[in-house]
């Protein structure tokens, strides 16, 4: 009796205080929410949402060519997306020394951050069994185009996106040279970069876990 009275009192207080007491809300809120919830199924059929969805909602606006150009900076393994321009190892060396060497080492091997240069004897691929084998552009990367794409978008971390296309070409050329993938006098541009032969290119295989369904109890994947 006493507690029932208290509940009512809180309920009234709750209304006055506009939800000031969490306990008071459910009484009023339940009445509000249960009725529409029961009427819901017609509005939101669980099984076939597409049946009532239009092909298009007409939301959003067309992108302008300028907007697309401004953001479309990716470079594909086939070289699609590479900009005009060119660079040689000699062009890249001074830029590397001033803007990259502090984090990646004088010759790309010394760190402290990711080791960028170095090949393994016979272009071996011992990475599963030897945790110390350095994964570099020359020893591990399957595509040279990735270096242009990544350096242009993300490096150096203190000023990402600040390098000009010719500077990126020069840096890529210098890194490929440090990895003994191109000669010192090579010129790297949109045509030559996708053609650089990468030692690890054929090492990469698609992931087959999950499909087809593993046999029950299969566990070595």
């Amino acid at each position, binding site marked *: 009796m006493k507690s029932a009275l208290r509940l009512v009192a809180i309920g009234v207080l709750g209304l006055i205080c506009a939800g000031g007491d969490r306990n008071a809300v459910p009484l009023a809120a339940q009445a509000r929410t249960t009725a529409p919830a029961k009427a819901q199924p017609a509005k939101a059929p669980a099984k076939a949402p597409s049946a009532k969805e239009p092909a298009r909602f007409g939301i959003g606006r067309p992108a302008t060519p300028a907007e697309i150009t401004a953001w479309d900076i990716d470079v594909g393994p086939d070289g699609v997306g590479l900009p005009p321009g060119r660079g040689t190892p000699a062009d890249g060396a001074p830029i590397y020394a001033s803007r990259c060497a502090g984090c990646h080492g004088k010759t790309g091997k010394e760190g402290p951050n990711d080791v960028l240069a170095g090949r393994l004897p016979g272009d071996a691929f011992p990475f599963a069994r030897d945790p110390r084998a350095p994964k570099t552009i020359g020893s591990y990367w399957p595509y040279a185009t990735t270096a242009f794409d990544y350096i242009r978008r993300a490096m150096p971390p203190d000023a990402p*996106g600040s390098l000009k296309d010719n500077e990126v070409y020069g840096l890529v050329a210098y890194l490929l040279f440090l990895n003994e993938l191109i000669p010192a006098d090579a010129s790297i541009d949109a045509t030559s970069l996708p053609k650089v032969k990468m030692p690890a290119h054929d090492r*990469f295989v698609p992931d087959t876990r999950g499909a087809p369904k593993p046999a029950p109890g299969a566990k070595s994947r």
Partner: protein
Amino acid sequence: MKVSRRALLAGAAGVVALGKTAAMQASQAPSDPSKVRGKPSRALGQRAPFEKPQRQPRGVASSGTPHQDLYGTITPADLHFERHHGGVPEIDPKTYSLLIHGMVERPMVFTLADLKRFPSVSRVHFLECSGNFGGRGTATELTPQQLAGLTSTSEWTGVALATLFREVGASPKATWFLAEGQDAAVLTRSIPVSKAHDDALIAYGQNGEAIRPEQGYPARLLLPGWEGNSNVKWLRRIELSDRPFMTREETSKYTEPMADGTARIFSFLMDARSLITYPAYPVTLSRGWVEINGIAWTGSGKIRRVDVSTDGGATWTPARLQEPVLSKAHTRFRHLWNWTGGEAVIMSRAVDETGYVQPTRDVLIAARGVSSVGYHVNPITGWLIRPDGTVVYRAEPW
């Protein structure tokens, strides 16, 4: 204006004193709270001052969820793990936009408000960084957070990516799309278009509120069950194509060298895993009944079973699973155990609805070698209970 050194010092002392009082208030509850009027209402709730769960930053680019402090399956948003490659960007929701172009009939731009106008869906899913294994060394003083803190579960709300692909008229010939973030790494991943038709979302909601900055505010890609890195945050651009883009994050990184001299690429699926979160380091157990409990998850769908061993893997008993078991979400398991003293190793092993069984360390090494890479490492792990009740990680150095 001149401020005397004395006034400054006094001011500083005042701040210190205030800080002290606040700290004292925080830690000193009245002995009988029913005799003291409580605090007034406030605009933003806070944790009880006695509860101090913390993410644990590892360097500047990641921090893990404190699994040992949590119950149930939903991770509080401020404790959701984070991992980023260019820091957490600050993005104004008013100027945010998502560009979808490439092999589409109509390249389009969607504002955040646009995204929210589309039919929405809410789903509970885990996220896990594929580098989520901290247990390969000799350290035994490891918490569940240090061992596997880079996984969390949230209720995500957003628009189905398939809906947006219909809106732009995605070409049936498009088989891959590039997802690109607006962070300083402008992080990119190539994703099969089939995932969009399966269950991919563009999410803007997390546990009922706007996504946290660390999780991709104001909008991110969510690929349920797939490795964290591919769930591109701060999403600004999607480009449809008929081939993958071979970005740095899917070639140099996030690929797994295999024992046979190959490397696995586009290894999106997060395989089944389980983790006992109690008892675990640094708990000290007392003899008697213990509810061993933890979380299990799989990118392949639902957890079917979690087995628990209290004798170092000699015998296994199915644990109780908390219902409802949701697809691609953390599932809480519990197992009652009467610890009568003496040394014991407790372990858990997840089995998912495809029949996949969480592997042992030895099985993983046989397939993958001891690679330094450490992606997709999901072995059965154990906690050693010592006779004095202290609990440590049972290290199995790789």
